[in-house]
């Protein structure tokens, strides 16, 4: 299904608001949305909520023969599924550009940064190695899938327990993920775009860093031109944010470990908040539609088009945008003939830009 196109008004509003450093949901320019990490019942399954964007990652492993060129290294495989569940714009089956982009970015971010020691995945050199497969499923798309996917993948990897196979029997050991690599996405000058902002942006810069302040991957996409200073500034911001997010991940892992030890029930069902309204349906209010076309044509004939410039937008409450102030009611109430005509004339005088056609408004 094709996406509903973004109207020009909305686009202008968002761009003007960004210029004035206001964001639609009340965040500051470099603020992240609320990140919530929960774990599933099995080891290696984790859910990440980035605002309303929801993503699930599952890690699984299998014993396979290694690649011929690298006989003593394990194999890491990443896969992001963009299912139509997340957004009606995603079509099932066909691999879209976005899907390829996300997959490649995730692969580059984790594989090249060598955050997992692949040599430790080797069981018998040249014959059997572990193939670790990370599947990320998008459940709800509200912008910034890349960040959510990377956080989910690394948390799932840290959470996963790989069975250790030896000749005698089986033991459980933790897969050593050496350091957490986290991606951060910037679009123009904003951090962590939500879905609307993503549609408006010209391009984005993705920086993946780990907590040792090493940059694992940088990727600029979209058709924007960058300057060196902008890239350096973004990388500085990234280092600050990455340490925050890594903190969050380790805390979540800690909590989960404690919960499991204490024997509490954990899993997806437990993590859903109870007693919350998630969807609301209201009846449509009836509107009187008689003679609407004639009235509309009348009004359009009399008055000029509104000025082109977009007035400064206001964000009075998160999720609510306001552009300009309302003007005087110019529809007029049809109570008495004399009064209504007076009102019309008064109102017309208030708007100095309107040209009065002499014949039109007669008293």
């Amino acid at each position: 299904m094709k996406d509903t196109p973004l109207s020009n008004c909305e686009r202008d509003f968002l761009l003007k608001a960004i210029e004035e450093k206001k964001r639609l949901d009340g965040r500051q320019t470099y603020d992240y949305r609320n990140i919530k990490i929960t774990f599933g019942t099995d080891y290696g399954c984790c859910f990440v909520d980035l605002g309303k964007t929801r993503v699930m990652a599952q890690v699984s492993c299998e014993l396979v023969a290694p690649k011929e060129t690298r006989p003593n290294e394990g194999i890491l495989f990443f896969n992001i599924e963009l299912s139509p569940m997340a957004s009606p714009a995603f079509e099932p089956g066909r691999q879209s550009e976005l899907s390829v982009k996300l997959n490649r970015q995730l692969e580059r971010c984790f594989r090249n940064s060598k955050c997992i020691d692949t040599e430790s995945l080797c069981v018998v050199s040249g014959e059997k190695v572990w193939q670790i497969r990370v599947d990320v499923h998008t459940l709800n798309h509200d912008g910034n899938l890349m960040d959510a996917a990377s956080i989910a993948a690394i948390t799932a990897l840290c959470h996963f327990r790989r069975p250790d196979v030896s000749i005698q029997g089986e033991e459980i050991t933790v897969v050593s993920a050496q350091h957490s690599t986290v991606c951060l996405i910037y679009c123009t000058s904003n951090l962590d775009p939500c879905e609307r902002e993503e549609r408006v942006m010209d391009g984005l810069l993705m920086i993946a860093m780990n907590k040792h302040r090493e940059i694992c991957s940088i990727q600029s996409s979209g058709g924007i031109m960058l300057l060196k200073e902008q890239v350096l500034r973004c990388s500085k911001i990234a280092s600050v944010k990455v340490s925050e997010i890594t903190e969050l991940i380790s805390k979540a892992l800690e909590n989960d470990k404690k919960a499991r030890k204490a024997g509490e029930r954990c899993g997806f069902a437990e993590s859903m908040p109870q007693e919350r309204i998630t969807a609301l349906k209201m009846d449509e209010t009836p509107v009187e539609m008689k003679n609407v076309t004639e009235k509309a044509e009348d009004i359009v004939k009399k008055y000029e088009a509104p000025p082109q410039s977009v007035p400064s937008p206001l964000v009075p409450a998160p999720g609510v945008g306001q552009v300009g102030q309302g003007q005087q009611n110019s529809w007029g109430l049809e109570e008495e003939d004399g009064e209504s005509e007076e009102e019309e004339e008064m109102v017309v005088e208030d708007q100095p830009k309107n040209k009065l056609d002499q014949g039109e408004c007669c008293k």
Partner: protein
Amino acid sequence: MAGLELLSDQGYRLDGRKATELRKVQARMGVFAQADGSAYIEQGNTKALAVVYGPHEMRGSRSRTLHDRAVINCQYSMATFSTAERKRRPHGDKKSTEMSLHLKQTFEAAILTQLYPRSQIDIFVKILQADGGNYSVCVNAATLAVIDAGIPMRDYVCACTVGFVDETPLADLCYTEENGGVSSLALALLPRGGQIALLQMDARLHQDHLETMMEAAMIACKGVSKVLDEVVRQHLQEASALSRD
């Protein structure tokens, strides 16, 4: 490869270059008669061929026509004989699609697409021999091909891959250096304004070194732009000499 020293104590690399030296660039424009623009470039041992068709009417899906500018369609592929092992899938795999997207993004930023609304510009690049710096050589080849086709651009788009070894940035990596676990940064630059059209980096690099890497990459790109400029002017002279006769 533990045994190979990517940068010796005297400052020489595996192929005898110094750290900031680029490989030898040889290029030709107007290689094919059928295409609107074409170019062939050799950067060291990496050889790439680029062909441009356009601007022409939108083919394929008419719904993708943009009312105010041209659509740029890029395809990147590697010949099956370009790498040491025969490539089973020259195009359609994830890496090629990603490269094509990057090329498209780079040229969308550089070409003046506003001059050709409702039309399409096709850029096809093929790597004939891959010896490191694939993306950069493609961009350089495509730039020459677009200039050959007469499509106006804001500036030359020059690209270069830079690596980092022993606190020194190495310009224009070759295949062994790229696979030696060196952090590599590919940068596509419009030299006059210093604007970066594409920035891509793999492998771990400490944040403090980022600035040095980017500086080195920008200087290398400016070097490449001088060479490309020479090639274009020479081609123009030859073409005008022939047509005068």
